[in-house]
């Protein structure tokens, strides 16, 4: 025995070790696929639960992503209308616009002269004749102010409004889209909710995979004992279970992708109809290829970690007797 051990050791060059390692990985991989197909219902149940757990936060993420795409269009349309007093002439109005441009949180300031305002009103309102009958232009000149909404908290915007109202040239100041700020605040909250949800569901996936692997280890107790008796290393015994966890994770990722695609397909028509009503060319954005890869990678790593924890805890406890 001694002689053979040493001669074997001498013969073991790195290449052979690597070849054996690769072969045993292939064996464990094929073996664990076989195990999955031996109990298809159980495997499918675990994979489905993993899939749903992954689909939920990803679905929320997609929803949020689409909301932000819609809202991004509104971001620019948020504006403050500054109606100037009627006795302010164009020169004064333009210099005021320059002053306001220097304020904090201002993206741009547009000047609409009284004449332009009147012309616009004449075209759009349909009261063209009635307005022509007026002797004097009743409309004030307007400064359209676009604040940088993202950098503007509600306190800041309140301060800005007060600042603007205090200007002697200003008659009234109107913040047109205060609600959009509220919407962004809500989106921000939902974003945090999604993060919390993702963490919780990731833990759930770990527990589910871990439990499945624990049951598999328990069911294969005799096999593990016999393997250990005939000199199997820990790595050799662990491999099939780790692969099994990995496959559950990857399968879960794929199922999550299917669920998301199906949901998007079902939502496509109603969303399109709504967009038409708003005469917008908005359409739902699905998962990108990077997103799909990320989903599968997340599933795979959660599955691997879950099975690894289970394997570390439960295989060591099994010793031959």
């Amino acid at each position, binding site marked *: *025995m*001694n002689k*053979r*051990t040493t001669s074997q050791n001498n013969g073991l060059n790195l290449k052979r070790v690597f070849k*054996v390692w690769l*072969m*045993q990985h292939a*064996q464990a991989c094929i073996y664990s696929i076989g195990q999955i197909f*031996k109990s298809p219902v159980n495997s499918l149940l675990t994979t489905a639960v993993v899939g749903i757990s992954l689909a939920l936060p990803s679905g929320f993420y997609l929803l949020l992503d689409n909301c932000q795409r819609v809202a991004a269009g509104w971001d620019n349309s948020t504006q403050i209308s500054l109606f100037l007093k009627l006795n302010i002439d164009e020169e004064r109005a333009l210099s005021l616009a320059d002053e306001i441009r220097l304020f904090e949180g201002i993206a741009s300031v547009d000047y609409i002269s009284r004449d332009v305002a009147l012309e616009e009103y004449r075209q759009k309102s349909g009261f063209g004749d009635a307005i022509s009958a007026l002797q004097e232009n009743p409309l004030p000149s307007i400064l359209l102010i676009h604040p940088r909404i993202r950098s503007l908290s509600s306190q800041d915007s309140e301060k800005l409004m007060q600042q603007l109202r205090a200007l002697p040239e200003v008659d009234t100041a109107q913040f047109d889209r205060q609600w959009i700020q509220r919407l962004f605040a809500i989106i921000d909250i939902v974003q945090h909710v999604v993060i919390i949800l993702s963490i919780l569901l990731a833990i759930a996936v770990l527990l589910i995979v871990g439990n499945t692997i624990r049951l598999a280890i328990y069911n294969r107790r*005799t*096999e593990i*004992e*016999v*393997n*250990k*008796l*005939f*000199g*199997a*290393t*820990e790595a*050799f015994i662990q491999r099939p279970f780790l692969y099994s966890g990995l496959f559950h994770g990857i399968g879960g990722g794929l199922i999550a992708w299917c669920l998301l695609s199906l949901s998007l397909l079902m939502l496509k028509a109603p969303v399109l109809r709504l967009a038409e009503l708003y005469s917008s060319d908005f359409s739902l954005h699905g998962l990108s290829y990077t997103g799909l890869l990320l989903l599968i990678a997340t599933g795979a790593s959660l599955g691997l970690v879950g099975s690894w924890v289970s394997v570390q805890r439960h295989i060591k406890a099994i*010793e*031959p*007797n």
Partner: protein
Amino acid sequence: MIRFTDVSMQYGDGNEALRKINLYIEQGAMVYVTGRSGAGKSSLLRLIALIERHKRGQIIVNGQNLERVTGRRIPLFRRNIGFMFQDHRLLYDRTVFDNIALPLVIAGHRYQEIRKRVHAALDKVSLLNKEKVSPIALSGGEQQRVGIARAVVHRPALILADEPTGNLDPALSWDIMKLFEQFNQVGVTVLIASHDLDMIKKMNKSIITLREGKLLTHIGLTINE
């Protein structure tokens, strides 16, 4: 091959299974360990296989001090031993071929090599026509022969058999013992725990007798202590 020096062993519950055992088994020997149930036959084998660890004394197996065989060295140490059990411990979810191939798969042999060796082992135990069936479809004697094939397929230097004929009738038991003798004749050290004294005497091999954890006779010599 195997040397015990003042070996004592206790189970976790404080029950002393072996007391101050001194014995020597030379390479290529075929030795029976006998004694009543609970005399420590299994414990002796379990110590050699590193299933249990001894508390006191020294065990040398094949030049290795077992105290130093720990952790990652245990699997490699066990690959030089072939195990045989009364309850077969065959895996019923795979074929006879796959059962026997197990030690070779663990050691990382290539498929061609595995097939050759498994067929040779099956041939020796006269079960070549059963390689594709599940062990559950075999009789007790046949299952035991599969167990033997699995114990020798990786050409271990030492075979440990714990009551290998416990459930078999005398004729089948005799066949099994003759099989072990054949392996012994090609140089494998064989250690068999058995309480079947009649058959052991007929086999005419060295005998180690245990009683209540103590050595009673050692290869023909009575121990007085």
